[in-house]
């Protein structure tokens, strides 16, 4: 809510006063990003925890025991480090599955795609809500 209000202030109050100046565009787009950051601040840890769990499950389904330790803390940076390490292993697994020509590999690859799709959808920010700042995104 705080970042939402900061974003609205930048877009609706600050940016219009800077119209005609290059910094006006900066203010507007920064306002939009403040709103996006507010949305992500609330859900990022949940997204990462779910991604980590699904990645471990996919690797386990392939018979690959991952050697990635649990995140050192619940800080976003630690959760991301764990997620990224597992993602590297998923890329290697998917490359291997694509080269295999059997039903089990195709089925697991479908599960991986379902995961990638679900993750991409969950990470799609809500559309920008402020026309003034949106216009800078051209």
């Amino acid at each position, binding site marked *: 809510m705080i970042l939402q209000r900061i974003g609205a202030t930048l877009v609706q109050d600050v940016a219009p*006063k*800077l*119209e*005609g*100046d*290059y910094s*006006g*565009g*900066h203010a507007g*787009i*920064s306002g*939009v*990003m403040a709103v*996006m950051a507010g949305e992500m601040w609330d859900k990022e840890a949940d997204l990462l925890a779910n991604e980590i769990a699904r990645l471990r499950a996919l690797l386990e389904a392939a018979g690959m025991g991952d050697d990635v330790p649990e995140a050192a803390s619940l800080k976003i940076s630690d959760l*991301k480090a764990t997620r*990224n390490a597992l*993602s*590297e292993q*998923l*890329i290697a697994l*998917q*490359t291997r599955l*694509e080269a295999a020509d059997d039903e089990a590999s*195709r*089925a697991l*690859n*479908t599960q991986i*795609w*379902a995961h*990638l*799709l679900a*993750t*991409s*959808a969950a*990470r*799609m*920010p809500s*559309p*920008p809500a402020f*026309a003034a700042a*949106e*216009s*800078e*995104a*051209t």
Partner: protein
Amino acid sequence: MPDTAVDNPTLADKFAAYAEAHIPGAGNLRVTHMNRIHGGASRETYSVDIAYEDATGPKVKGLILRRDPADSLIDTDRRVEFAAIRTAYGKANIPAPEALFLETDPGPLGAPFFVMGRIEGGTPLNPFRIEEVEPYRTEVGRDFFRHLGAIASLDIDGAPIADEIDTPEAGQCWKRELDHWASEIRTHAREPQPVAEAAIRYLAASPPPPAQKLALVHGDFRSGNFLHDGAGHICAVLDWEMAHIGDPYEDLAWATDLLWCASDQARAAGFIPWPEALAIWQEASGCTFDPQAFEWWSLFAHLKGLGIWISSARAFADGKNDDPILAWSGWFTHAAHELMLASRLAEKHGVKI
């Protein structure tokens, strides 16, 4: 804040000296207005008014100055951009700006730059608000696909662009572009990119047909990169920084990418029905629409988008460019293109959408 006549006096003074030395017969040249404008985030872009005298009397002229920044949205050679504009200017009714000066020496203005004539009276169109062009959506859409096709129709033999960049084999256009953007993604990504990596493998394993012709490819032809006159016509095609020689389908697919259609998939690029758009493009370009080629290039367009947005985010994160538009595109448009790629490829791999 009032519009400042000259928001960078030091740059304006240097530019005035340069322009006076490079406009034949010009004297007493002054910069009467200079302000940095948004758009074309790959280079610093300034709108400049100059006044001077020559043998025929006083003159005024509107210019666009494009100066290299420390880092840019897209790392391209301004010589190629300049040559692409020269290739299109005055040809096939393409409203390209006039290319005036190219300076590769960083001495005069602190960084290489080039200068174009400013096309007056045009308005940009926000790609996320295409409805703002109403009631001229159809007319602008017809112009959009006519100019897109016209660019592909230009003869590149002996054209300025052919002097500045390699011409690929018709069967290798796809590979050159895929290799380039795969490299950009792998070089600049700040975290693993499983969707992009899977897309790279998929595209490499299922190449498109050879290019029907080798053509000038604008590289970023889309809503947001042209000006319209408010009466149904496109009066300027801008942002040629990703121009190269390649397959015309690359431009067609990028111009009609879902990101630029304002959520209106029933209309090509959000403007006009697909059959009409493709008919105009075919007539103007001389190409025949091939669904197989378009399928490959439209998937590639999503991946190219990821390459651009990943590079943007990296430049901002590394502090090489402080324009927040790079951070925004590295987040919002990256997420959009990743979701598009994941949706289409997941369906091809058996996921029920």
